[in-house]
């Protein structure tokens, strides 16, 4: 595996920084320490410095767990590099631990020989006891195999900030920014964008803003001074070679929101979004609610069922109805999804998956709702299912969902997950005018109108919205006559309608891209087939192994229902098919059932994303190293 390790720079007065190809830094501290803010600021300046990157916020489900406890530890990991970065990194090179609990929880992740930066001022008898330490790890030799940088960050922050007139309490809260300043120095980051951001964020309390900026500068200066003694290493990471264009960082939640708005724009429809708050899906509701001035309607419903039903009502009335949730919510929406299938109305349902069953691990990621998305309804109720493979991919996937839903008059489930929703990646900002529109035409002509007369190509029924004169008609969940939509209990009609609903998916299959091989050859010894957020680790593992001469390929699916029409033929060209999934083996079952290929699963269900090394090891075990 080609991951960079941090060399110890020569303890000289040389100002030459050690160049690195890529680095993983993990910030950790108490939930109240502002770790997510710290990490996000570091990611922002890292992006501005031109590195490729992926971030992974890893926080507890508790909003504010008791201070200093291990279950209250919040962490933020970032992998950035001069090369393409596809995951948030297997193991940190640098761990920043702002209290003993963070050290206790996070140390096991750190690479052997990695750097650990701690706030020694936070290591007192009480906090050590709370974290479950019998002895002070800073003094008992237990950190000997790491490079320990222990600084009394609390004290230094207070010394810097308090003289400005900031209270002891508020001054101490600047210690994350002091630490950020130090890390900025280590990686040669520009402080100005963060200082500007702090001014804006604390515009209402200039004293707090200047306190934080002073802390940022002080942390940075400490690094600079300590360099003279060689205590703090300095590194440089060159910009990555990205395709030319305008970039920003984007999380999956934001990309989905914007993709849905863009999709509605391309369809020429109003976007109506109804949802009920649930972790980790709520950021989508927040993001879309902020876009009301752009004609986006959002509705916080009383429950999951009301949310999906309001979205169905909205589509019935002529908007692009969208609802979202996580696994438990999708379960509640099941009956209404059956109605949307029967009524043949467009609907997009976003499922930001989390670990189950039941309440499970609300803030941890999993891919265990695939079967629920495909089959989790009563009766034969086929619908389309798409999966986004990363934060930036959410944008295109959302547009594709709107296209299929409106063109085929069918519900579409979009699978995201807790990792994608929160992880940020650089994203080349598209030009909306360069995207292909797919304008919806409502039926207006009463001549020859029948509610279930179908388009010959798509099998879509006409979208005739209330308010249109001459097209008054009734629809519902009871089986309908295949033309008039009137209630029909006729056996042959039910057979015909069931067949037609299923055939719609066959028609969609002809209208989606053929499955391609992302990395490696179109035939050979081993294909690794993934869907969703396993894209990063699979991609990095396969790219590395192909470079090393192994006969392995990476196939990644966006369309899960219907599957691309050439997929079966493609898979049969490989001796072995390996399917890594963050579940107990759902896609692998589907591929085996659908194509009779001897696909094998690689399954992880710990609430954490795959590591590159885990996928590499599984590939090598099958290819022989």
């Amino acid at each position, binding site marked *: 595996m080609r991951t960079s390790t941090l060399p110890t720079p020569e303890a000289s007065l040389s100002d030459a920084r050690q160049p690195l190809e890529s680095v993983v830094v993990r910030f950790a501290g108490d939930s109240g320490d502002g770790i997510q803010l710290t990490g996000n600021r570091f990611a922002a300046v890292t*992006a*501005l410095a*031109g590195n490729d990157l992926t971030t992974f916020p890893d926080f507890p489900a508790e909003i504010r767990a008791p201070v200093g406890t291990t279950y209250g530890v919040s962490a933020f990991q970032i992998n950035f590099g001069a090369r393409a970065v596809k995951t948030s990194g297997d193991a940190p090179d640098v761990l920043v631990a702002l209290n003993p609990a963070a050290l206790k929880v996070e140390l096991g992740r750190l690479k052997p020989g990695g750097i650990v930066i701690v706030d020694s001022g936070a290591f007192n008898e009480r906090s050590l006891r709370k974290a479950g330490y019998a002895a002070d790890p800073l003094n008992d030799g237990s950190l000997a195999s790491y490079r320990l940088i222990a600084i009394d960050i609390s004290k230094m922050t207070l010394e810097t900030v308090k003289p400005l007139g900031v209270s002891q309490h508020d001054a101490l809260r600047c210690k994350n920014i002091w630490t950020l300043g130090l890390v900025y120095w280590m990686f040669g980051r520009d402080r100005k964008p963060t200082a500007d951001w702090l001014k804006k964020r604390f515009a209402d309390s200039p004293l707090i803003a200047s306190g934080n900026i002073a802390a940022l500068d002080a942390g940075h200066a400490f690094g600079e001074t300590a360099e003279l003694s060689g205590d703090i290493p300095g590194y440089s990471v060159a910009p990555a070679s*990205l395709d*030319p*264009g*305008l*970039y*920003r*960082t984007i999380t999956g939640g934001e990309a989905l929101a914007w993709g849905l*708005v863009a999709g*509605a*724009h391309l369809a*020429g*429809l*109003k*976007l*109506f979004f*109804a949802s009920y708050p649930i972790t980790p899906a709520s950021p989508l509701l927040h993001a879309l609610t902020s*876009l*009301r*001035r*752009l*004609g*986006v*309607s959002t*509705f916080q*419903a*009383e429950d999951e*069922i*009301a*949310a999906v*039903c*309001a*979205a*169905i*009502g*909205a589509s*019935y*009335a*002529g*908007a692009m*109805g969208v609802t979202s949730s996580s696994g438990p919510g999708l379960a509640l929406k099941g*009956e*209404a999804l*059956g*109605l949307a299938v029967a009524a043949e109305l467009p609907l997009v349902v976003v499922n930001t998956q989390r670990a189950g069953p039941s309440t499970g691990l609300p803030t941890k990621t999993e891919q265990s709702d695939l079967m629920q998305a495909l089959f989790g309804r009563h009766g034969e109720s086929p619908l389309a299912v798409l999966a986004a493979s990363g934060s930036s991919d959410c944008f295109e996937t959302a547009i594709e969902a709107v296209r299929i839903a409106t063109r085929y008059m069918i519900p579409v489930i979009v699978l995201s997950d807790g990792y994608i929703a929160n992880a940020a990646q650089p994203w080349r900002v*598209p*030009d909306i005018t360069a995207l292909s529109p797919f304008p919806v035409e409502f039926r207006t002509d009463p001549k020859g109108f029948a509610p279930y007369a179908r388009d010959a190509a798509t099998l879509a029924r006409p979208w005739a919205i*209330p*308010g249109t004169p*001459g097209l*008054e*008609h*009734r*629809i*519902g*969940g*009871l089986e309908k006559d295949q033309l008039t939509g*009137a209630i029909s209990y006729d056996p042959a009609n039910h057979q015909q309608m069931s067949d037609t609903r299923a055939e719609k998916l066959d028609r969609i299959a002809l209208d989606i891209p053929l499955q391609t091989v992302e990395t490696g050859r179109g035939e050979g010894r081993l294909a690794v087939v993934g869907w969703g957020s396993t894209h990063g680790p699979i991609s990095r593992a396969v790219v590395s192994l192909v470079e090393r001469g192994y006969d392995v390929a990476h196939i990644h699916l966006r369309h899960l229902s219907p599957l691309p029409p050439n997929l079966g033929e493609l898979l049969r060209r490989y001796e072995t098919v390996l399917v890594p999934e963050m579940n107990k083996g759902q896609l692998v079952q589907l591929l085996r059932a659908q194509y009779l290929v001897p696909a094998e699963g690689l399954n992880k269900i710990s609430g954490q994303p795959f590591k590159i090394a885990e996928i590499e090891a599984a590939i090598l075990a099958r290819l022989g190293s």
Partner: protein
Amino acid sequence: MNVVSPIKPRTAKDFATDQEVRWCPGCGDYAILKAVQKMLADVDADPAATVFVSGIGCSSRFPYYMATYGFHTIHGRAPTVATGVKLVNPELDVWVVTGDGDALSIGGNHLLHVLRRNVDLQILLFNNEIYGLTKGQYSPTSRTGTRSPTSPTGSVERPVSPIGFALGAGGRFVARSIDTMQKHLVDVLKQARAHRGASFVEIFQNCIVYNDAVFAGFTERDVADANQILLQDGKPMIFGAKGSRGLRLVPGKLEIEAVTIGENGVSVADLLVHDATNRPLAGLLAAMQPPALPMALGVLYCDPAMALGSAVHAGLGERQAPPSADELNALLRRGDTWTVSA
């Protein structure tokens, strides 16, 4: 000179579909259907701008028989579908048709919230105090002691009052009528339609098969006068044969009593005057039960407030048109960006 023939006014028949109505012979639903069709004809409603949304149950077949737009949805959820319709197109006249099981058992939560939010809909609850379509089990409005397949020795649960529920949920228009009182029902429906915001109408509906004559104690001709009061806003509360009886507050108590006009010195001037904007009064009227007090019919409460659709569209700066490409491009470029050169 051309002779211009006047546009023929719509009749009740114009709102009927070609579908065969499939309720049991003698079901109260027929009378309600007739009243709704007549009411829409009377107000010359535009069928294309009228939508009936229903849940599941006998009552919920209603949309199939209306020559308007109609959506027969799933059990208990009609208020939520209707909310989506109304929020997307506030110009539509949206009606929810539901029953006591649909609205108050499986859909209780949605009824609560649609009333609380004051979405501009008319909600017609056909109350027959029984589950009809599943063959006669007791419902949330069944009186204690109701014998049914699931309560063979009599139900032990206490019933919910639909009107009390609607008032408690914050409904701004709460009314009641009876399937067989055509004129009264049409009039109440007209007022419900005219009201901006959620209008809730409980309609006593006789289930001839599973719960026949359950309302006979105040609907039958021989007892109607004694056991009904037809409320009229601003008018004294008079009922009984030839208007001989009235309602007044018991002196010193927040309690209504029935009195005979002319007895014990009681005159019309002593009676309560109906004030539809008085919510505590509506609560007292809703609680009246025959034979001690007459069943209150008509508009118990009507006090308009900003409806959700209007609040969303007027108050939150939301607009109807989707965003332009320029606006979207600006959105995507908001915040920190950087350029990678070739």
